[in-house]
């Protein structure tokens, strides 16, 4: 087992508060939600396990300070609710990582029979392959066909966020805080004033 402090990127004499902070930061960074349907979902969940056990180990070593971690540890691999729809077998293929096969099966379904779920699954496959533009288009089609579906909508909103450039948001500092937006608004209006007055 590696040094748990190294895994969390802190020194062994860090305070309990620092340990907690480092753990929170990393757990957010490698959270399965960020990597859902990503080609690196497995690697990310490995990393998450490593971080969790490092944190547990440090807490055990420091026992007496009785703060156990909570929150990020219970996660069940992002599997699909397999009951949904007529594409059960294709969802099983995707869950088992057999994306090529799933894509072939989906492509063989004639266009007239393609439902919202078809578009959603196609989107997931494209996303996994790195064909992000098609993933976006399929996901948006799925949402158009079934606007109330939570699964499709949450996937689509995640992709849309990536397109707006909020990809570093787990750090919190570099994007989209209200204060910055407010300032940039001021700046913009300032520019506008300038150009009017000239």
């Amino acid at each position: 087992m590696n040094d748990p402090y190294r895994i969390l990127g802190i020194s062994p004499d860090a305070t309990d508060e620092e340990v907690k902070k480092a753990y929170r930061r990393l757990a957010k960074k490698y959270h399965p939600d960020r990597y859902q349907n990503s080609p690196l979902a497995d690697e990310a969940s490995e990393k998450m396990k490593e971080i969790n056990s490092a944190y547990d180990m440090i807490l055990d070593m420091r026992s007496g300070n009785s703060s156990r971690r909570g929150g990020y540890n219970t996660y069940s691999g992002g599997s699909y609710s397999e009951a949904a729809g007529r594409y059960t077998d294709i969802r099983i293929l995707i869950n088992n990582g057999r994306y090529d096969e799933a894509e072939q099966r989906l492509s063989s379904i004639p266009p007239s029979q393609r439902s919202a779920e078809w578009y959603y699954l196609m989107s997931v496959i494209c996303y996994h392959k790195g064909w992000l533009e098609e993933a976006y288009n399929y996901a948006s089609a799925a949402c158009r066909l079934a606007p109330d579906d939570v699964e499709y909508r949450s996937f689509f909103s995640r992709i849309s966020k990536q397109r707006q450039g909020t990809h570093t948001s787990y750090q919190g500092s570099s994007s989209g805080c209200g204060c910055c937006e407010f300032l940039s608004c001021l700046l913009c209006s300032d520019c506008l004033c300038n150009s009017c007055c000239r």
Partner: protein
Amino acid sequence: MFGYLRPFKDELKVKDYQLYKSVYCGLCKSMKKEYGLLSTLMLSYDCTVLAMLCLSVNDEKYCVRKGRCTVNPLKKCSICKGEGWAFSFAGAVSVIMTRYKLNDTILDSGFLKKLAAFFLRLVFHGNYKRALKAYPEIDSLTAAMMESQAEAERNNAGIDRSADPTATLIKKLCGMISPGEAMRHQMEVFGYFVGRWIYLIDAADDVQKDMKHHNFNPFAAKYQGDIKATMGYCNEVLNMTASQMILSYELLELHSFKAILDNIVYDGLSYQQKKYTIDKYNEKNSDNKRGN
């Protein structure tokens, strides 16, 4: 297609910027040693990043020493020297990619450009042969990439399909420098999105020119002539690619140059995007441009 992967200097510490420059100079020195002085013309920022990534993931030992610039001996600079094959690999990539780029220029450019490219190809022919001998796999990968690129363009392919050949090439190159099987998948996925981003920003950079000359460009179709809308669209596609690149980047195990690589991935990409998609047009189109 070269030179989009760069750090955002303003956010970089001075010591890290100097380290970055020393890698650049180190690659230049290594190319001069292996291929001769003229070959240093083929040096690119992208290959500097490749050398740095290779040093970093493989935990390769390196030293930085003071020396003189290869091209201008009056100038002093610090030079990074690796103990392994990182620089030699990055140099070979530079040489081979340049060769194929020249081939491409000879195929579809105007007369003068064609002539210049033909001349340069002749000059660099010896370099190419040498790189080919040392790294035949890089050559075959690049050849395959050019072929599928040409096919995608013939078929007027969409964004994903036309970015795929470059993305796949960089993916394979990153696989080649991966430190071992455990890391290969992360490296390949990272490489795929790096390649995709490079292809797309190059396409975004060329979109106006391509529209004018009716050349193939994956971004041209969607908004026809509306350049502002097209640029917004380019930015969205690039953002999404960058965010996937970041996800894979965060799973890499880096041993050195972390501050520089972080800077490139978190700040450099978005800065370059802004430069080539937004700033470029704001500058050109504003009527009351202030002199600088």
